Structure formats: C-alpha cells, structure tokens
C-alpha cells in the first residue's frame, strides 16, 4: 500500500486533543476518588452486622464485576431517565466510573483488610478501642498499603475505561479523536496519536501513584 502517514491534520487539531486528554484525566480522577470512597464504605458495609446490607454490597459487586462497563453506562444514561433521573453525559460517566471502580475497589480493599493480622485487631480491642475506631486507626492504612499496587493498577484500567464513555457522548479523548477522524478520515494518524496520549496519561498516573504512596505510606515495614 502506498499510504503515507500525514499528521498535519492531527497536529492542526492537537489543542483539541490535549484538551480532551485533560477531560479524560478529569473523568478518571473523579471516578477513582469516588471509587475509593465507595470501596472503603463498601468494605465497612460488607463487615456490618446487618445481613441485608452485606447482601446488597455483595450483589452490587457481583453485578458490576460480571457485566461490561458499556452496559452499565448505557443503563445509567438511557434507562434511569425512565425512572425520572436524568443525568448529563459527564455526570453519568463519572458515576458509572465510580460505581465500576468502586465495585473492584471493594473487593481489593476487602482483601487487604482480611490480610491484616488478627493480632492487630486484638491489640486494638485489648486497648479498649471500638470496632469503628479499630477500622479507622488500626486497619485502614496498613490494609490500603498492602493492596495499593492492585488498587492503582485497577485505577489505570479505569483510566483506559473512560474511552467507553464516548458511547454516551461524554466529552473525553476518544470521542474527540473520533470526531477528528470523521472530519478528516485520517484514522491511522488519529488512533496512533491517542494511543500515545493514553500511554502518557497512564504513565503519568503511575508516577503520581508512586508519589502518593511514598508520601502516605512512609512507615517502614519488615
């Protein structure tokens, strides 16, 4: 084939792509912050005395983890309005990412909590701390530390998942790329460029994650 790559069309619209990349980062950050909160609260609920609450959390996790993200985001966007809840694409995207990431986060963080030696909890009890205090002051931080690598790689996946949000017309990198592709038919140039952009974004995320880890988990372990 005598196709010659010509990036001029992409370069011309690079500002659009970079802006969209920022939007992708924004969606990812919002999604993962909320996912962390859902993860922690979910683990608390998962350990609660109330069977119904535990069951709800388990059901939530199973449904989310075993269905495609596309289906989830479709339902929030297209089906919820029939129940009177109408959310714009960006809000929908953030909620869908948060729920999806949250379900994984619940499972991951729960693993970390389960891995905390029983002695730590007993030491807390023996000192007179209550269950909530023990979770907050004794368990949470070491648990997050042990699962930090899995949690962050899940979050990198979440970042890449933002590309699916294009299907509900959310503004992010892939949707802008597709628009540019449609306008110019420069498919290769556009897709190569955003592959690179995604790689930069995920590398950036990993760097930030490493930094956060160094700051928050600065205590030595044997």
């Amino acid at each position, binding site marked *: *084939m*005598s*196709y010659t790559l010509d990036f001029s*069309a992409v370069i011309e619209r690079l500002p659009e792509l970079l802006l969209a990349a920022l939007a992708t980062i924004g969606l990812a950050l919002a999604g993962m912050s909320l996912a962390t909160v859902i993860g922690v609260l979910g683990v608390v609920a998962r350990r609660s005395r109330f069977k119904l609450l535990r069951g709800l959390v388990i059901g939530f996790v199973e449904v989310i983890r075993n269905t495609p993200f596309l289906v989830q985001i479709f339902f929030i*966007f*297209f*089906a919820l*309005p*029939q129940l009177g809840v*109408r959310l*714009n*694409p960006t809000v929908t995207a953030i909620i869908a990412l948060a729920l999806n990431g949250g379900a994984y986060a619940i499972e991951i963080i729960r693993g970390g909590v389960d891995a905390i030696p029983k002695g730590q909890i007993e030491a807390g009890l023996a000192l007179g701390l209550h269950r909530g205090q023990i979770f907050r002051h004794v368990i949470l931080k070491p648990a997050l530390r042990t699962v930090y690598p899995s949690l962050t790689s899940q979050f990198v996946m979440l970042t890449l998942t933002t590309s699916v949000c*294009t*299907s*509900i*017309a959310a503004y992010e990198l892939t*949707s802008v790329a*597709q*628009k540019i*592709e*449609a*306008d*110019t*038919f*420069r*498919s*290769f140039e556009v*897709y190569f460029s955003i592959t690179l952009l995604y790689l930069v974004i995920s590398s950036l995320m990993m760097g930030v994650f490493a930094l956060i880890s160094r700051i928050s988990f600065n205590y030595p372990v044997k």
Partner: protein
Amino acid sequence: GTVAEAKAKGTVVIGIQGDNAPWGFVNSSGVQDGLDADIGKAFADYLGVKAQFVPLAVANRIPALMTGKVDVLFATMGMTAERAKTIQYSKPYAGNVLSVYGPKDKKIGGYDDLKGVAVGVPKSSAMDTAISAGAKSANILRFDDDAANIQALLSGQVEVVGGNQFYGDRLNTAAPDKYEPKFDLTTLYNGAGTRPGEKDWNETINAFLDKIKADGELAKIYDKWMKREVPKFPEQLPDIPFTAQ
C-alpha cells in the same frame, strides 16, 4: 489489488457498514443487506465477478480501505472537502435528506434555534457534519449509532436529533405523534471511496455509476430502500474531485 487483479481472482472485496440500516447492515441471518449492499452487488455484476462483503464499523472503514483489506467502500460516506483530502470519492450515488427532529411542542425553525440546545447525532454521520457546520453554538452529543441517538431523544437526554428520512417512522413507532421533522439540513451526497491515486478503481466505479443511473437500476434500488426517487446529483462539488488525478 487492482481492478485487473480483482477480475482475475473473480471477486471484488467491498466494505459496507455493518449496522447502519437501511444503508448498509448485517441482517439477523448474518447476511449483509441494504442500499449499499445492493449497489455493491450490482457493481460486482458489472465487473463480472463475485462480491465479497466486509461489514465494517465507523472506526475501521478507512483503515480497512487504506490497508487494502477491501477494494472499495460503499459505506454511507458523506462527501466533504476535508475528507476528500484523504480518500478518493467517486461521483455521488445517493443523497442524504437530513432533517432535525424534535418534539411537536418545541419551536425549532432553523440553525439559529439550535443555540445552546442539546442535539443528538450519530457519530461521524452526515448529520454531524452538517449540524457542526451550521449551528456552531449547539450542544452536539455524538452517539455511536442511530439506535443510541434515537434512544437519547426518547430518554430526554437530548432535546432534538439530527436524523435521516427514516427517523420519522421510527420515532412515530416508539412514541406516536410526539415528534416531527423540524427543518431540513443541507443535503449531503454519498460517494464510494477508493484509495487515492488508484485511477483504475475510481474510473471503473464512475463508469458503473453512470451506467446504473442511466439504465434505471439505481432508481430501482433507491426505491426499494429509500422509498423515494433518486435525487438529482450535482455535476461537481467544491473541492471534492470525483475523478482521480
């Protein structure tokens, strides 16, 4: 390959869209169908070879053409000057009568009324191109396909949609008497796409199109899928050459 190669092999590989009824789609028996498929078949007959169809999505139709995975695209491609920089269009063979559809109780008379309005369009479609150009300050939401676009209107996620002439029926089935066409967008023409510089394909297709336009075959196919008459095609479009240099 070249036209000669295709003739020697006895097949021409034609890319159509897989999910864009009634233009080009795969029906529930897994067989390609629609206007583009029928024109493709006619083209194969014209060449005296068998047609091999490759159903494509919006995202991969151009790559499939450029990498030689298909010989020619009959893939519902609206002809624009910018796109013409990348691929070689043939003469137009179909016209898109595009309109804006909206609820009956909403007053929309033209592009100016779309200011700040949430408008749904199918991604990479002629409607997208037209509304993007016509109503710069509209809030355009681009969905993956017609089904999602229509669903967005029904769910109230957008206030109006840009659609083709089939939207009227579909909307009426889903929500009787609720929606109506508001105004027509500039008509866009579809052309077949070939790799730039490949004169043989371009010339063959143009000759083929001239033939079916003249002998009424296009009119028959048009009537079958579009349920209307063949529009009058322009002799030329600004910055969109129909013939390869």
